[in-house]
């Protein structure tokens, strides 16, 4: 089974409930430190999985790409995704977005 596989058993799972965005964000923030460098996030119709370089995964069930709440989660881990197409249906099981983008060194320094 490859590292990118979405069948890997997650290290932890959180069940997202309507109105429970803060708890879901808190779960992600708390568990983030247990992952290594983040690699990608996969968002299906009803779940979201965050993968690190080791292939370890955290899963949030009950939150898919159609749900506007997912935007807050994607932004909280600096996901490279297109908000204009994020919610559109896909034939694939998951939409896959890259992680790892960061601020360039001294990006606001003017010479």
């Amino acid at each position, binding site marked *: 089974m490859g590292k990118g596989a979405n069948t890997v058993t997650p290290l932890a799972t959180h069940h997202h409930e309507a109105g429970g965005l803060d708890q879901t964000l808190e779960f992600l923030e708390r568990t983030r430190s247990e992952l290594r460098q983040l690699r990608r996030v996969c968002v299906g119709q009803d779940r979201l999985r965050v993968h690190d370089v080791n292939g370890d995964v955290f899963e949030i069930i009950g939150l898919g790409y159609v749900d506007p709440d997912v935007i807050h989660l994607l932004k909280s881990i600096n996901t490279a995704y297109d908000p204009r197409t994020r919610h559109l249906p896909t034939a694939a099981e998951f939409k896959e977005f*890259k992680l790892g983008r960061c601020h360039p060194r001294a990006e606001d320094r003017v010479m």
Partner: protein
Amino acid sequence: MLQTPSKPSMNEARDQDPFNNSSYGTLVDAPYKLVSLPVLDVLDFNERIIRGYEDGSAEKGLPADLSMARSLVPAGTATLRDFSNIAPEIPLYIPENCTGCMDCVTQCPDTAILGKVLSEAELEERLATITEPADRDMFRTQWSRTKKYFDAPKKKGLPGGMFNIIIDPSKCKGCAECVTLCDDNALKMADKTDEVMTAARKSHRYFKNFGPSNAQYISDNLLIDMMLKEQTHLYTGGAGSCAGCGEGTALRMLCASTGSKYGDQWGIVAATGCNTVYTSTYPYNPYLVPWTNSLFENAPAYAIGVRMRWDQMGWQDRPLWCLGGDGAMFDIGFQALSRLFASGMNIKVFVLDTQVYSNTGGQASTSSFTGQNTKMSVHGKVLGGKQERRKEIAQIAMMHPRSYVAQTTCAHTNHFYRSVLGALEFDGPAIVVCYTTCQPEHGVGDNMAADQARLAVDSRAFPLLVYDPRKGNTLKERLSLQGNPASKDDWYVNPKTKEPVTFIDFARSEGRFSKQFDRDGNPSQTLLRAKEDRLENWHLLQELAGLR
């Protein structure tokens, strides 16, 4: 009179390096690389000056002396440098999952992950030399039976080869590039506990003690296996580049492919830039071949002089590489580069194209993409990042008389090696332009060099090409776009998402373009122009290659 006990050599086990991980030789131990120069005493340099830097006494006790005044540094001194303490994590090898693809070994920017193949009998023979049973068992479990080295030779009636990947803990900077590349779960990052580090240090020591790979398992036709040979490791670990530096990998692969054909009988003239800083931060030098640096703008002119002298000495058969970044080759040294092509001389140019002046803090070069946020094109109210279009040095070089041109990335390993070997085989001037990440300036993770290089090609930001004047009489015969996905189409379509991969997708994944997107993710007009620019450039290449 009391006698002071002599200190062990820097190339031997000592208190600071009990398993002698920081020793000369990459796959096997080797002595210092001595030179017969009256002005440079290698033994003195390595034992006195390097020791001073490694034990921290240099700034207090080393006098300014003649070797320092001459700025001479012996070959390969970076191998004596210890980087064990700069990162909190190190990769661990999981042999049962390994396929022997060699991607991790090839792409490591720091020569910190190494491979070896021995027959079963050879392995048992070597294991028997480990006196400590626990160590013997520990190291035995790190050898794997892969289809590539074990099953395939067996089918041919040869003994199966046992394969081992090892991490050199004294050189690894913990970037996780190798782990990111490994699709087989054969590497994972782990915390550097005492137990992990002791096992890594011991394993690396046994790895070097076990001698070279058995040559019968190394196919010369399989370019990715070249790093199983000691002669290809002419760029040691210990350079001062950032963790995950894309340039480091490019230089290693350049040295490996040149070394595979010419051993260490070749040289480098380097233009000032990041590459010269991290490969000559006194007193550390990762090169095991002659290397020189003068200024920023004159490397091609300097190389012409070296070539002339070498030819006078009868060294016509020794390749000479002229290295530089995009600032040195696209901008400030451009006229010298053009002169080099016009000369028709047998000099090979290698460009580390990071699309920015990385060394001096990230100023725009003519290689920077439209929309890129750099220090000389800061994204603000008046201007949204760089407004000019990117200069295409490959196309300009193609229009010089009879010059070999390639544009490649390290992530396209076979294309890279073939481009470099093609340049070396060509009897005349050649240029290989290599896309490389600069993590701090691009705004991408330390582990993303290969990922971003692949996306740069897929999105037409940086197309692969080879222009070989020997291939025919027409442009389309000489220019090949092989290696680019969907080379007859405008954009490559991702088979998973069924969506085209454009420059906007590339830009979205890097911090240097983040200000080009509004809160809703809409790209700016500047970025849309950049996308059109990349498509126009791609169309031009398609036209020249007869694909349009």
